[in-house]
């Protein structure tokens, strides 16, 4: 792991605090205070329009008992488990391809990046139309191959997968660019040595590339899992939690409890439950990194 650059001298500790200071201070002031407030609110009933009233553990109990909120937790877990591995693998594969091709790198990189340049609302609306059962592009293509159309957003078993599909395709540009930065960082000497030893392409990838990008993989997996737990936009625009609550995510429930039904106490309680879950999952990953992440 990283090497210490000082020998525990007091001045150097202050230098470290100086480097870390602005961020810590900023996060304390602009996140943790608000977080504390929301923790307090989770024990109250609050409409945001008037003053909170004490509610004890009511909100938490309700969150654990309510079937819709329970369903949203299951859906979210499912979504995380499906979308993150697929997303990371897809990004990695395309990053390798981009790294390997001789020409038009710039162009394709730009193409992958375009979803990020499209207004998020426009992006979701276009995909919603593409998913349309009668007029959408996907079913039109299927029909031309004489295949039956799919009810992408209206069928219970399919809807969540459609959301995953959307997220992976529109998000892979991010992973690709992060991987490309990581790949660039690999010492060319490793590749040269492998070439001299006559190693095949796949072996090189397996034995050299992958281990050396594990810090990048780790970063992507951790951050992707965290943001997958918070998936909201595509659900809000495309399915509103349906059909039959199969795409209801926790963030959607949190948003609804708060901004649609003016129950911010409940919203905060659910948000805190989510927070704890994410923390636990991340902590497990952080401990596990020693086992598989290779740092120089």
């Amino acid at each position, binding site marked *: 792991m990283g090497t210490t650059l000082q020998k525990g001298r007091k001045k150097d500790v202050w230098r470290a605090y100086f*480097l870390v200071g*602005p961020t810590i201070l900023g996060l304390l002031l*602009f996140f943790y205070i608000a977080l504390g407030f929301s923790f307090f609110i989770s024990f109250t009933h609050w409409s945001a329009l008037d003053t909170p009233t004490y509610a004890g553990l009511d909100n938490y109990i309700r969150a654990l008992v309510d079937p819709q909120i329970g369903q949203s937790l299951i859906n979210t877990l499912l979504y995380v488990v499906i979308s993150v591995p697929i997303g990371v693998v897809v990004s990695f594969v395309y990053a390798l391809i981009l790294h390997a091709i001789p020409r038009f790198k*710039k162009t394709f990189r730009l193409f992958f990046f375009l979803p990020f340049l499209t207004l998020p609302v426009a992006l979701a609306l276009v995909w919603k139309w593409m998913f349309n059962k009668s007029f959408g592009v996907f079913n039109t293509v299927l029909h031309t191959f004489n295949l039956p159309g799919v009810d992408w957003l209206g069928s219970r078993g399919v809807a969540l997968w459609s959301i995953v599909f959307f997220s992976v395709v529109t998000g892979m540009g991010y992973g690709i660019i992060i991987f490309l930065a990581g790949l660039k960082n690999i010492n*060319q000497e490793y590749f040269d040595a492998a070439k001299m030893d006559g190693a095949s392409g796949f072996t090189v990838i397996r034995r050299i590339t992958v281990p050396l990008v594990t*810090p990048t993989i780790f970063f992507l997996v951790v951050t992707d899992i965290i943001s997958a737990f918070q998936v909201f936009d595509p659900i809000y625009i495309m399915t509103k939690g349906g059909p039959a609550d199969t795409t209801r995510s926790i963030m959607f429930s949190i948003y609804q409890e708060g*901004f649609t039904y003016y129950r911010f106490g409940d919203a905060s309680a659910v948000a805190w439950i989510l927070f704890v879950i994410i923390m636990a999952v991340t902590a497990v990953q952080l401990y596990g990194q020693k086992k598989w992440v290779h740092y120089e």
Partner: protein
Amino acid sequence: MKNTDHPRPFQLRDIGLYLMLILGTILAIFPFLWMISTSLKGPVEVLSVNPTLLPVEWRWQNYPDVFNFLPTFGRMYFNTAFRTVTIVVGQLLFSAMAAFAFARLDFPGKNFLFLMVLGVLMIPGQVTLIPNFILFSQIGWVNNYLGLIVPSMFSAVGVFLFRQYFLSMPQTLFDAALIDGCTSIGMFWRVGLPLAQNALVSFGIFSTLWAWNDFLWPLILTNTEDMYLLSVGIGMFQGQFQSNFALMMSAASMATVPILILFVILQKRIIDGIAMTGLKT
């Protein structure tokens, strides 16, 4: 030995690679093209059930019309640009600083503070919205640049990303500077930061995008139209029952242009990369 400066000759397997790329990018390009094409359509064609990619009638008038409908559009542009630049500079600088310390220095409380940073990532965004707004109302940071910019200048993701990056740098890079008697801060500024240019540019792009499209917090924080950002302004084209999609996409396309240009310019930067020649002599 660097990567060759001239592209290597085509091989047969490249066909397969390019096919895969095309497949992957079709879906990525399509919504963007649709956005542009919608921005040039007339109001009736926009809502057509069987949309065509190319407009039947090219309505360039949509673009000036955006300014007629929203006279403050230009001001929104400035707000967004100003805010984005300051936020990105802040995020890159502060995150890199903290990440360097977390990755390569030792100090009491290091792990705890890092967990604190990570913790922020895990806070569901909307939860802090109203509490922060209440806080900012108390200190008078509502509807001004202070409230818009300062809270967003700190990025937990950035710290995390740069930390990984700094961790993967071999110690040998720093030994030379250490021998020369560089302090930790000097090490950061003279060695770490320049070497992290790839990561800075990569993260910088996403940081820019995120700041440019940021919507919810600016919506809540701003009260007067002259402080609105583009993201909020574009939302104005969506009505309760009907929306003017054509104008909305025109506005959105105009909002996209600077980022597109930025990305195209910076792409070269990414490709040129940093030569690791310093080690191989």
